[in-house]
């Protein structure tokens, strides 16, 4: 079977005020795979992820999503973003509305989903992440772990083709990390395509099929996860793993 590389990154560069943060990154992602991105702080992981849905505008290179170069001018980026869910370290739930409204506003407003359909979907997804009872709660009433589970559901409401996670558990108290990772594990098992920036090495190793080691704005290694962890090649990866494992 042919590999469906639905998301291709070609020669991606990103500079901030003349400082190169991403240096000529080329890689691609296939459907249903779970890819972890690891690396030292400041290595460009967040920037890379944010270039995929153009929250950052790449300085050079292209991002080809479903055969379309979304960096090209005149592309309706809002349309493409609907198909790429994103989950942030700081959750970023809409603070002024309750959980349910957080979930159904975008589908109703942007995708023109009928309200009852959106509600039904929201309730179903909330149940799956164990948040059904909190549908009427406001974000400030939730714990970090609960917020993040809702944030994941908010992204899922748009039926994305791929989910981008930027350190989804880094802002959580240790006892809440598990509940979020469990939700992500379930998603992975259901076949969701996921790109996950993470410091959770166990997650990278056990859940993701492939791991990318990003350091100094370059992809230093990009391999099946068990191989990368069991046989790291580049000295930088070896020393990074020594530090974090």
């Amino acid at each position, binding site marked *: 079977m042919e590999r469906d590389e639905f998301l291709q990154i070609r020669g991606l560069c990103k500079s901030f005020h003349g400082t190169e943060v991403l240096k000529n990154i080329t890689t691609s992602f296939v459907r249903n795979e779970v890819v972890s991105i690891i690396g030292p702080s400041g290595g460009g992981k967040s920037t890379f992820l944010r270039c995929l849905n153009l*929250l950052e505008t790449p300085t050079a290179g292209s991002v080809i999503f479903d055969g379309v170069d979304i960096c090209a001018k005149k592309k309706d980026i809002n349309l493409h973003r*609907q198909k790429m869910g994103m989950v942030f370290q700081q959750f970023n739930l809409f*603070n*002024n509305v309750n959980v349910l409204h957080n979930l159904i506003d975008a589908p109703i*407003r*942007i995708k023109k989903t009928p309200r009852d359909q959106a509600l039904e979907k929201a309730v179903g997804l909330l149940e799956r992440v164990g948040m059904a009872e909190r549908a009427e709660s406001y974000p400030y*009433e939730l714990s970090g772990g609960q917020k993040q589970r809702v944030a994941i559901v908010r992204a899922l409401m748009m039926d994305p083709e791929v989910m981008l996670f930027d350190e989804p558990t880094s802002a959580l108290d240790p006892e809440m990390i598990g509940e979020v990772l469990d939700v992500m594990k379930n998603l992975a098992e259901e076949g969701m395509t996921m790109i996950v920036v993470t410091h959770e090495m166990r997650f990278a190793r056990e859940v993701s099929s492939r791991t990318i080691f990003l350091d100094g704005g370059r992809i230093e290694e990009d391999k099946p996860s068990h191989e990368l962890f069991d046989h790291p090649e580049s000295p930088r990866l070896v020393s990074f793993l020594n530090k974090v494992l």
Partner: protein
Amino acid sequence: MQFFNDMALLFTRYNSFFTEGIRNTLIIAAFSVLIGTVLGTLMAMMRMSRILPLRLLATAYIEFIRGTPLMVQLMFIFYGLPMIGVTFPEISFIPDFSRFAAGIVAMSINSCAYVAEIIRSGIQAVDSGQMEAARSIGYSHWQAMAYVVLPQAVRNILPALGNEFVTMIKESSIVSVIGIADLMFRTRDVIAVTYRTMASLAIVALIYFCMTFLGGRLIAWMERRMSHGKG
């Protein structure tokens, strides 16, 4: 004791002067802030625009207005505009309309600059993650602004607008120099008639203080209600 008796006497005898003054002061402050808010919203949008000339224009306007005295601005409008042929019309059923119009225009132009900054900082105080999250789901910039950012910014903006109104109640006393019969102007009338300078000033100070103090309490109450239970 004599002094307080004087005050009480003056206040009861010239009651109509003070009430007319209060009414006019409140009208001028309210209209100025209202017009200032409409214009200030536009100005704030220009100030945050991606179009450089608009941004520069708005920045220059805001900086210039905030960097010059209201008195000078008022004089420019009242004496300057007629010199270049711009006059405010008289309206038969509103006495002294052209004078009032000049005062309100000058105060609105002034308020606009301050309101623009209030709105801008109110919007920028909303965590940028809110905008990013909305954009990442597929909201356009304006949708995210309208449905996510602004509703949260309003909670910062409304109390500050209230404060602007309270400030305007005080600042508007300056329009008395162009002959608008506001509270300050009417107080000077009372002084001219009675020669009771200190007692009259004490009364007017007390009246201004009551208005601003009550206004301030009202805003604080509003602020508490709006932030109630919203993290």
